[in-house]
């Protein structure tokens, strides 16, 4: 090939690079997140909503005997608990497979040969699953609100006072996804799921850990449990289901603290996962 045509080609490339609109980190992360959401939808992750609606309707019929106000309380209790459990199920089982599946199926090979950083990939996958959870939780929350309107035969304040509690559930699920992602960045999906579930459970008792630590005699064991308290996510920040069933809403500062705690905790977990993921060889 002649020298001239090389130069012409290079010129064309320079011109074509002008159509690159935004080649920054954020558009790439958003593209990955959008694709992750699309995967969840096509893999029928949203089908659980059908199950949720069936459960809710079944529950409402079963509850037909009780007084209307008691009924409403039980619907909130049961509905929000179901949102948390369904959400946790998705967060854990989809979460541990988010990255693992891409490595296993070698779909990341083509992706990392493009200008995509490993951290960008992780954050994109994370946000994609969070978006999936947001849609899920929103639809389930709306289902609970509608059920309340139905059993009370009109607008009940509970139909909207439950929403701050629903938002707290979503935050908790977002922490859970980050935990699942961190574990799966260095261990198998099965083990990651088990560990994440374990953390989900003790995360709710983490406040008790501190009290328990204070009651201990030996300095070493006390230090251990105090460390555990700070290390594990404090999920009791997000447990507002019971109060919501009694028509209470979290005070703004409680809500804000939970939000900030969640953001910081997730940021730290994602940073740790990126550090681990950065060092991996995709053999």
């Amino acid at each position, binding site marked *: 090939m002649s020298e001239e045509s090389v130069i012409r080609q290079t010129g064309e490339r320079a011109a074509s690079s002008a*159509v690159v609109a935004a080649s920054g980190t954020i*558009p790439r992360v958003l593209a990955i997140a959008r694709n992750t959401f699309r995967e969840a939808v096509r893999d029928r992750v949203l089908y659980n909503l059908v199950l949720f609606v069936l459960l809710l309707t079944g529950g409402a019929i079963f509850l037909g005997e009780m007084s209307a106000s008691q009924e409403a309380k039980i619907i909130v209790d049961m509905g929000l608990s179901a949102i948390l459990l369904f959400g946790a199920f998705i967060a854990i089982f989809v979460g541990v497979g988010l990255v693992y599946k891409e490595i296993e199926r070698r779909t990341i090979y083509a992706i990392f040969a493009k200008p995509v950083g490993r951290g960008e990939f992780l954050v994109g996958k994370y946000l994609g699953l969070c978006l999936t959870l947001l849609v899920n939780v929103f639809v389930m929350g709306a289902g609970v609100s509608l059920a309340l309107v139905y059993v009370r035969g009109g607008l009940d304040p509970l139909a909207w006072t439950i929403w701050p509690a629903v938002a707290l559930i979503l935050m908790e699920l977002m922490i859970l996804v980050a935990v699942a992602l961190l574990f799966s960045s260095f261990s198998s999906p099965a083990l990651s799921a088990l560990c994440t579930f374990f953390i989900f459970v003790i995360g709710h008792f983490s406040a008790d850990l501190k009290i328990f630590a204070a009651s201990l005699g030996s300095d070493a064991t006390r230090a251990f449990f105090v460390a555990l308290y700070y290390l594990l996510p404090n999920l009791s920040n997000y447990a507002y289901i019971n109060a919501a069933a009694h028509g209470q809403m979290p005070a703004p500062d409680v809500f804000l603290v939970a939000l900030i705690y969640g953001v910081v905790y997730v940021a730290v977990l994602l940073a740790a996962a990126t550090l681990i993921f950065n060092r991996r060889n995709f053999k």
Partner: protein
Amino acid sequence: MMSHAVEINNLTKDYEVGFWRKRKVRALDKLSLEVERGEIFGFLGANGAGKTTTIKLLMRLMYPTGGSATILGRDIGDISMHARIGYLPEHPYFYDYLTAREFLEYCAELFGYTRHERKRRAADMLSRVRLEEKSWNKQLRKFSKGMLQRVGLAQALVNDPEVVFLDEPMSGLDPIGRREVRDLIASLRETGTTVFLCSHILADIEVLCDRAAILQRGRLAHAGRLDELRQLGGERGMEITVVGANMPELEARLAGIEGSRLTASPGGARIEVPTEKQVDAALDAVRASGARLVSVHPVGNPLEELFVAKVEMNEGQEEKK
């Protein structure tokens, strides 16, 4: 001076194998080579020679045990350089829930192209790799291996890369597909794209490449222009086919040519001489004996002999150890 398209210096990779007692296996041993801009460079080696390992190191999918490399003058650790390269993985597999078109648009999006440009490029590339238009909107889970290979090529070229790395691009294709992919790779020469072509099939490298490297058990055995490599393979013999020969006379006249061999064939004869230089003398003998010339052919493929001989030699050495 423009930097090389690819420059590899003492690149080394050990794999850790074994679960309990980890031991290291050297898959790539101090590989050094250079690829010029605009050339189609063949990377030839038997299965397990370390070709895929080399490419994965270059793509930053793995980290080297030792050595370094640059692509377009930038260190392989510099991910932003990936905007200017393309890669077709070995046995490619992509998101099976996406259609071919969606996948290409997604790839283009990762390069930061505008929505309009993404659509244009996706359609361009899919027709360029000759994927039938009726398959564009089918999910990749329904694709055959050959179709996936084409999608793989399309995604490798979606950003008009300056250097493209192809790991066994013809595998999984039928003969027509192989020829189409071969033509596609050849057409990259016109756009000035550098091609780093990995293959264990000599014929693919031979028809496409300007230069090639032969890799053997993780070590560079040879690198150079294809004609140089052919010469390294040694002298090639020639085969002359004639008809209407007077066999006894032809045999007598050929007696003076060292190493020549005469075989009778239906209606004629085949003469083999060990070197090209002896062809003239053999042709004189043919004419003098009154036979008619049908054809003159080179025998065997010196590059193939080089390739095969090297493998055997290395295996021999391995056994002696």
